[in-house]
C-alpha cells in the first residue's frame, strides 16, 4: 500500500486512491513519450539501456518494468506525467536525514518497477502496469507549481521506482529547478551509469534502498543484482551527489552480523564514513507475510556493528521515539538534530557545523 500515515492529500491534485483494476482517468496518448536510453535492433526489436537488465523487447511488448513499450521499433515510456500517487511528506519520511531537515517534499510516483522485491510495501503500484492503476495527468510544470503552492521545498520521486519513470523525473526536476524547487530521488539504484550520470546533474539528493549486501538476496528476493547497485552508489558519491542509504532488515534473510559488517566496511571504504545508513524495520507485506517484523534487538545489533566499523551516522528507522533517530555529532557526541518519528524537535547546527564543538556535519543544511 502507499504510505498512509501522516499523508496529506494534495488539494491541487485530486487523485483517486490507487485502486487496482481501474482505468486511467485520462487518455493514454498524453502519457506517452519516446523513451531515453535505448538501442534499436534489427527487425524492430529494441534493447533498453536504462537499467542493468537490458531487456530486449519485441514490437508491441514491454520491458520487465511494464511501463516502457516497443511500438513499431521505437521505444516509449507510457508513464510521463501519469501520477498514481501524490502526497506531501516530511523529508524525514524518505528518509533523508541530512537534507534540509523539517522541510516538506511533494512526493509522486507512477506505476512500475524494474525489480520485484518480495517485501515490497507498495506492490499495488510498483508491480502493476500503468493502465491497471488509477492515475492523473500531472505535467512537470504543474507539479513544480503544486510544490510551491503547498510550501514544499522539494519534489520527491518515490513510492514505486523512479528509474522507470526517468523521463518524467528528469523533466520535472528541470521544471522544479526553474521554479526554485529541489528534487530528491528514492530509488533501488538499479540503473545504468550513463542515465545515472545525467540524473545527478538534475537532482539534489538520492536515497538508495540497498536491499541487502549479498547477491543471493538480490537474486532470490529482489529479482535483481547487487553489483550494479553498488556501482551506482560509488558513482553518485564521485559525482558529488548527497546520498543516504536505507537497509531494510528482513528477519532471517539479510540480518546476519557478517552481512552488516560487510556492508559497513564497504560503505567506509567505497563511500566514506559520512554517508548515513538507516537500518529500518521490516513489516510483513506482499510475498513475505510469513515473516515477523524485525525485532528491535536485531536493528540495534546492526547499528552496533556499523558504529563499530566507524560509520558516523547510523540510524534506526520505523521505530518512532528511538534515540537512534537523532543525529549525533561524531566529535562531541551531542545531539545536533533531534527527531521524533518524522518530526524535528530541534536542530543544533550553525552553517552545517555542530553548535557545541563546530565539527562539520555532513549533509545539505539550511542556514
Amino acid at each position, binding site marked *: 500500500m502507499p504510505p498512509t500515515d501522516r499523508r496529506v492529500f494534495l488539494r491541487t491534485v485530486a487523485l483517486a486512491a490507487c485502486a487496482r483494476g481501474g482505468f486511467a482517468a485520462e487518455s493514454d496518448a498524453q502519457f506517452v513519450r519516446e523513451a531515453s536510453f535505448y538501442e534499436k535492433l534489427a*527487425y524492430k526489436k529494441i534493447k533498453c539501456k536504462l537499467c542493468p537488465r537490458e531487456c530486449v523487447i519485441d514490437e508491441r511488448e514491454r*520491458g*520487465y518494468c511494464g511501463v516502457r513499450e516497443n511500438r513499431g521499433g521505437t521505444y516509449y515510456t507510457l508513464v510521463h506525467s501519469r501520477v498514481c500517487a501524490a502526497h506531501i511528506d516530511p523529508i524525514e519520511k524518505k528518509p533523508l536525514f541530512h537534507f534540509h531537515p523539517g522541510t516538506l517534499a511533494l512526493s509522486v510516483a507512477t506505476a512500475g518497477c524494474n525489480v520485484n522485491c518480495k517485501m515490497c510495501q507498495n506492490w499495488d503500484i510498483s508491480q*502493476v502496469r500503468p493502465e491497471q492503476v488509477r492515475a492523473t495527468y500531472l505535467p512537470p510544470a504543474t507539479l513544480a507549481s503544486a510544490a510551491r503552492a503547498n510550501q514544499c521545498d522539494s519534489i520527491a520521486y518515490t513510492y514505486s521506482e523512479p528509474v522507470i519513470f526517468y523521463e518524467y523525473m528528469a523533466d520535472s526536476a528541470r521544471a522544479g529547478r526553474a521554479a526554485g524547487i529541489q528534487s530528491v530521488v528514492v530509488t533501488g539504484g538499479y540503473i545504468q551509469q550513463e542515465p545515472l550520470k545525467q540524473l545527478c546533474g538534475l537532482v539534489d539528493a538520492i536515497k538508495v534502498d540497498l536491499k541487502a549486501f549479498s547477491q543471493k538476496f538480490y537474486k532470490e528476493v529482489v529479482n535483481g543484482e547487487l553489483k550494479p547497485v553498488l556501482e551506482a552508489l560509488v558513482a553518485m558519491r564521485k559525482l558529488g551527489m548527497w546520498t543516504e542509504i536505507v537497509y531494510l532488515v528482513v528477519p532471517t534473510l539479510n540480518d546476519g552480523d557478517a552481512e552488516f559488517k560487510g556492508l559497513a566496511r564497504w560503505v567506509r571504504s567505497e563511500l566514506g564514513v559520512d554517508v548515513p545508513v538507516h537500518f529500518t524495520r521490516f513489516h510483513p507485506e506482499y510475498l513475505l507475510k510469513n515473516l515477523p517484523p524485525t525485532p528491535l534487538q536485531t536493528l540495534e545489533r546492526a547499528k552496533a556493528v556499523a558504529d563499530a566499523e566507524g560509520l558516523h551516522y547510523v540510524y534506526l528507522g520505523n521505530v518512532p521515539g528511538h534515540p537512534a533517530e537523532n543525529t549525533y555529532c561524531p566529535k562531541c557526541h551531542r545531539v545536533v538534530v533531534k527527531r521524533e518519528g518524522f518530526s524535528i524537535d530541534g536542530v543544533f547546527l550553525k552553517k552545517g557545523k555542530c553548535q557545541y564543538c563546530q565539527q562539520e556535519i555532513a549533509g545539505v543544511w539550511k542556514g
Partner: protein
Amino acid sequence: MRTSGSALLKALDRTVQGVYDRDNALEAWKRVARPGEVVGLKVNCLAGRGASTSVPLVEAICERLQQAGVPARNIVIWDRLNDDLESAGFRIQTSGGRLRCLGNDVAGYEGDLVEHGSAASLLSKTLTQTCDAVINLPVLKDHGIVGVTMALKNLFGAIHNPNKYHSDVGDPYVADVYMLPPIRQKVRLAICDAITAQYEGGPSYMPQWDWSYNGLIVSRDPVALDYTGWQIIERKRAEKGHKPLKETGRQPKYIATAADPAHRIGTNDPARIDRVEL
C-alpha cells in the same frame, strides 16, 4: 492433423472427436462445456494479424459450441487488451446479450494476489468471474526469450504482470503461472492454431520466418501439446538452417518443469504422448 482452406471446420471436428474419443462431432463438443456454462476462448493476439489466433478458427469453434448447446451469450473471446484483439481482426463486443469479445484492460483484474511457487499475480476477472470453462487457443510459434510460446505460455494473458516472468527463459515462471488455481481448474482444452506457424523471430509477426503448417494441434494436456509443438518448430528450424533453440540459449525448459513432480500439469515424455495425425 492438417487443414487446408475450407476444410477447417471438418478438421476441427475430427481433432476434437479424437481428443474426446467420440464417434460424433457434436457429442465431442458437448464434452467441452456443460449446459449453462460460460466458455472463454483465450486467444493469443499480441502479434496482430499474421501470427495471432486466426479469426476463422475462432468463428468455427464458436459455431460448434453453439451447435453443442452453448448460447452465443455464454461465449467470451478474450485476451490481454482490446487493442490486441482488434489488431488481430476481432471485434470488441462487451454487452447486448450476444457473443462477447473483450480485453482484460476492460474487464479488469481481481484485487487479491494468487500465488504458486515463483508466481504471484492478479488474475483477469474474465477468467475468475465470467468463465466456467476455458478453451486455450495459442499459436504455434517461436519466442525470442522463452523459446516457444503455445498452450502453457498463452495463460500469461490471464495475469496482470506477465512482464515479470520472462527471466531465466521463463523457467519456472511459465509452469508456476499455469498452476494458479483458476487456470488449472478452468482450462479444459487447448487448440493450437498451427495453420500458419513461425519458427524464428517470435512472438512478433515476422513473415520471413513463418510457414504454412496447415495444422491444428489439439490436446487436453498442455504440456504434451507444447512438447509436440516445440519439436515441430525444432524440425523446421533445422530444415531452414537455424540453430536448435538450446544453442541459442532459448531451450524451453519450462515444459519439463511443467511435467515435473512439483507441477504435474501434463507429460513431456514422448513415450507417453499418443500422437494421432489426422
